[in-house]
């Protein structure tokens, strides 16, 4: 197949398309030399060993955080020290991130379509609600409204949660799921039956 001429202008990099013989894509030499000399590394945001580390997390805080997260407490001094060290470096990292000036910038929650078109599509209008308003009826003459509720009680809504089981039904008791309560002495999170 002939090459499409437009490829010559992509990125001004001199990209010429896949190699005729091997079919492999050859990176341009300019790109290669640019990438071989990184100008930044995430390591710049981690604590350097020489720095005078002031503990920003106490042992008590660590234990509290583990409890909040339903994680087990450290089983040895070594493990605790290791956790504290990791936490310290993470806090340091976050502090570096926080140095960026974000005045006037709205925090990003998720990458979403934020075009006017999509905004219009998402907006709840009377049309959206019409089917539900139609389910209501006027009662009397004072403007009272009551939603019409189904006369038959529903018995099943389309999905059986017990499908999730391993077939041995270890979490099922009749039509209920069940959990066992109880703590062991050192306040570890409760252990559920296998």
């Amino acid at each position, binding site marked *: 197949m002939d090459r499409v001429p437009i490829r010559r202008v992509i990125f001004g990099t001199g990209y010429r398309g896949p190699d005729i013989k091997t079919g492999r894509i050859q990176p341009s030499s300019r790109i290669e030399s640019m990438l071989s000399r990184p100008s930044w590394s995430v390591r710049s945001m981690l604590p350097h060993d020489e720095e005078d580390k002031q503990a920003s997390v106490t042992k008590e805080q660590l234990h509290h955080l583990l409890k909040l997260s339903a994680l087990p407490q450290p089983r040895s001094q070594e493990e605790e020290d290791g956790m504290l060290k990791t936490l310290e470096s993470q806090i340091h990292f976050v502090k570096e991130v926080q140095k960026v000036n974000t005045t006037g910038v709205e925090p990003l929650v998720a990458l979403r379509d934020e075009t006017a078109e999509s905004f219009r599509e*998402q907006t709840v209008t009377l049309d959206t609600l019409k089917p539900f308003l139609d389910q209501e009826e006027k009662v009397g003459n004072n403007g009272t*409204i009551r939603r019409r*509720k189904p006369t038959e009680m529903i018995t099943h*809504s389309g*999905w059986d949660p017990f499908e999730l089981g391993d077939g041995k039904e270890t979490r099922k008791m009749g039509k209920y*799921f*069940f*959990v066992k309560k109880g703590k062991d002495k050192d306040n570890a999170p409760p252990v559920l039956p296998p």
Partner: protein
Amino acid sequence: MLLEPLPEQAPLRKQLKDAARASRGKHDDEVSERDRVRHERLAQWELTVGIEIHAQLNTSSKLFSRASAEYTDVPNAASWPFDLAVPGSQPLFQPAVLVPAIRAALALKCQIQRRSKFDRKHYFYHDQPAGYQITQYYEPLARDGHLVLTQQDGLGEKDGGKIEIGIKQVQLEQDTAKTQEQDEVTSLIDFNRSGHALIEIISLPHLHTPEAAAAYVRKVQSILYAVDAATTGMELGGLRADVNVSVRRLDDNTSNHSYSGVGGLGQRTEIKNLSSFKSVEDAVRAERDRQIDVLESGGTIEGETRGWSLSAPGVTRRLRGKEGEVDYRYMPDPDISPLYIHPEVVEHLREHLPPVPEQLLDMLCANYGFTVVDAQALLALDNGGRLLWYQDIVAHLKVRENDVRSRLGVQVGNWVLHELGALLTTTETQWHPGLIDSQQMADLVSLQAQNKLTGPSAKRLLRILFDGDKRSVAEIAEEENLLFMPMTDEEYDALADAVIEANSSEADVVRQNGKQAKGKLKFLLGQMMRQGDRNRIEAQRAERILQTKLSPVGA
């Protein structure tokens, strides 16, 4: 305003009157000395209460899944994967929930936000499958509303006649699964309720008595019911309240906590999961007393979560201290887009917003001549059904009479509330719309208004209708001989003559002394009433005949 339909057996009107009298300040418990001392002590402190109410929305689907939200008694039959936080399941916002939610917010006079967002509130518990609840912490659906409480709503003495309670916000959130204790170590879980749409209504700390706190919750429930936003009340677990309580000494400035922008308050504690109006009042009172005790003996109040139970209504107990405090780590939910609501939706719902009880009360008093107590009684009966029947009756009458207000409105009210009420009570019957046709009632009242029926005859006719007679009122009156046939002038004449002759000495006294002999005249009148046909004689005419016959000048 009472929401629960009270049985006819209870003397409803008496209850309301007692409540009205009590709220005017004549409490029994102020009599004893002990209470006088307690009263004095309380006078030095100010109680402040803020309340968070969680109400299940009246809607057909859950908040973020297509599972049905209708009632079912089959456990675990109404869930979709997202309700059990099955990995990979995604939230799908159900717009149906906005109808009751916006109505509730509008009825509470809030501003509906054009844009609102959803956040995650993290904590671990077996009824919270995802490990977080989806709520609206940062940008709720509605803000800045208020609610007015008056004496009739059951305010305490200290509140004065009327108070306005600010509402900080109304937000959408998920309900948890239902737990049942099988035994000491086993809990059974039903996920039907997991993911149901709730609204949380957060008040500002503007309440200052236990009575006002209970009145506030009661009023919110009645408003939600009136606009069809929530149809299961506290008694059925559809509405729960958490209260925040603090006290401060009135004469010092050391209280410097600030909650929701209200400053100068003492340290507050929270009491969760109160499930009746009375328990709100009792729990607030118990906690107030405890905090005053602690502070008066030199201690300090810790910010903690406490519990209250019916078995020990005078005390609250500590559930969770500072060290057990939960950090919810609120964060915006990245899986859920912001909610945008078109203004036309808000306008439409506002325009067609059903009337709240206050409006109906005002209408009854202004347009139908009711007293407040009677209006409240009527509104409370049969879930609003009695009111509608009453209005139908009046509507039939309007066709014939021009001046319904004050005269006929009150008369119909008397029949619907008191006469029929008495019949229902004595026969232990429950009212229902088909009991007596509204046209029949209208005819009865009309006949009585035209003086074609005396009081006693009308009551008899009512009884006949009550027992199920479907003939028209005109037919019944005719065939049962109930119509009032007034005595003719000749008959009055003859009767008066007979009575005067039989009591000539009294008659002479009247002849001689005229207006001075009122007592004797009444005696003669009484004789006429007793001897005349009970069903046909009218006292006024009889009296006039006597006066004419016995006037000093006439013959």
